[in-house]
């Protein structure tokens, strides 16, 4: 079995467009949430959202490369370009190695909606243009990035609801661990627009705490009233330890374990048993004890039931030592398909810079969160090993364990 390490990372999010910006935001507890007035006019119950503008790729990419890219592919590109640069994987490297890509993405609502609108108006499919199909397929990120970066290994998209990004890292880890791939680009992307989030808003799952947008996302807090959607892109480069050492790559961390499970009961209501099984599987796969985890980046999205059940699950497995826990969604909002990947990047930044990012807006615990060691403020602390949780609709669960690299 191969050891699997991380040799590059990149992020493009509501709290920063570079790793440095994001690190500063995490340390300072800066929120990326805004009140988006057009959503109110569009018919949203909650116009709150995390926001980062779409990147301007003209000049960076040729027209033919850009034309099939919607927001998810653009966000994924920005994160992946950073990550590949850090990993020192240039076109020459891609030419000589079978680098793969597994990326989490579970919607392309805007591209599909706008294309259908044109056909409705013009009654002629040709007037949609050539890029709509590549923007509108769920695999838009992997198909675009594999062509742009000339990737020759595994190539497909993982749609696992709000755990998509986390599962992509888990699956990349398994492929490398089992010797089927040497290098895999893993990550998650999430579009930010009303088309993508209207049906989610319809479930009354979003916060209506409008007085101060930055206070609306309050995971684990007693007064939380729902999540705030968000988006962007995040990428990590996974590589076998052997390959990383051979080429003298800078090794950021090691992926030790991936646990997964399905609740198998309800479409939206999360339970305790499913996450507990994913947590325990990740510990077993990593061959570490619960007491060795220094920090847990919780999935907690700021919904009453979800956060409560995750708190129970974390307490059940980690109650003895009580590692630091925070949900970075308090700052970013819920980055959905991207979240499982971005939260690994956020946690890696904490690990590299020896701090635990705050769970902002955690003012009063409820009966379940009171049992956890939640970092309400930034804590300067060494993190040797962290665990990142991601759960999604349909009861899909993913837990990743990542350790600071040591020989």
């Amino acid at each position, binding site marked *: 079995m191969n050891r699997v390490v991380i040799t590059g990372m990149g992020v493009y999010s509501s709290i920063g467009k570079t790793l440095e910006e994001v690190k500063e935001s995490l340390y300072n507890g800066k929120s990326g949430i805004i009140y988006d007035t057009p959503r109110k006019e569009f018919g949203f119950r909650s116009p709150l959202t995390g926001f980062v503008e779409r990147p301007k790729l*003209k000049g960076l990419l*040729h*027209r*033919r490369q850009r*034309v099939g890219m919607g927001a998810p592919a653009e966000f994924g590109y920005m994160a992946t370009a950073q990550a590949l640069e850090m990993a020192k994987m240039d076109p020459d490297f891609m030419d000589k190695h079978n680098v793969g890509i597994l990326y989490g993405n579970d919607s392309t609502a805007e591209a599909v909606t706008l294309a259908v609108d044109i056909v409705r108006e*013009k009654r*002629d499919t*040709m*007037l*949609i*243009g*050539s*890029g709509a199909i590549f923007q509108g397929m769920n695999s838009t990120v992997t198909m675009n990035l594999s062509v742009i970066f000339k990737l020759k290994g595994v190539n497909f998209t993982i749609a696992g609801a709000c755990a998509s990004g986390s599962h992509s890292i888990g699956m990349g880890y398994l492929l490398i661990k089992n010797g089927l791939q040497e290098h895999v680009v893993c990550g998650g992307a999430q579009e930010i627009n009303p088309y993508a989030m209207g049906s989610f808003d319809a479930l009354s799952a979003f916060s209506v705490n409008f007085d101060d947008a930055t206070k609306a996302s309050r995971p684990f807090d007693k007064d939380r009233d729902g999540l705030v959607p968000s988006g962007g892109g995040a990428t990590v480069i996974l590589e076998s330890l052997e390959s990383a050492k051979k080429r003298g790559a800078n090794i950021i961390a090691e992926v030790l374990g991936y646990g997964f499970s399905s609740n198998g009961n309800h479409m939206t209501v999360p339970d305790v048993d499913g996450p507990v099984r994913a947590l325990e599987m990740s510990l077993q796969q990593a061959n570490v004890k619960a007491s060795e985890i220094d920090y847990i980046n919780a999935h907690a999205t700021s919904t009453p039931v979800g956060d409560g059940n995750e708190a129970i699950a974390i307490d059940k497995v980690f109650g003895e030592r009580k590692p630091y826990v925070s949900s970075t969604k308090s700052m970013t909002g819920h980055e959905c398909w991207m979240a499982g990947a971005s939260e690994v990047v956020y946690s890696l930044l904490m690990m590299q810079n020896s701090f635990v990012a705050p769970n902002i807006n955690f003012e009063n615990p409820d009966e379940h969160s009171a049992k956890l060691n939640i970092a309400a403020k930034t804590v300067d602390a060494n993190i040797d090993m962290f665990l990142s949780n991601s759960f999604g609709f349909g009861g899909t669960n993913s837990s990743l364990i990542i350790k600071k690299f040591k020989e």
Partner: protein
Amino acid sequence: MQNEEIISKINEFLVEEFEVEEDQIVPDANLMETLELDSLDLVDLVVIIEKNFGFKVKGEEFADIKTFQNFYDYVINRVNKGQ
């Protein structure tokens, strides 16, 4: 619409949308080669013509358009026919 106006509008969207340098747009130059167009790009050219001039080009009509001048003549002809 005057012919000069049509030509100027075409050149403008070729520069903006197809990212061709202005000095590469020479009446006798080959349109497809200069713009590095493949079959997918032709679909986008159809869309841009429709947006700018309000008529749709059929794919097969591109067969007779070799140079920029052919392209200008074709569009001018279609625009004038419409009037």
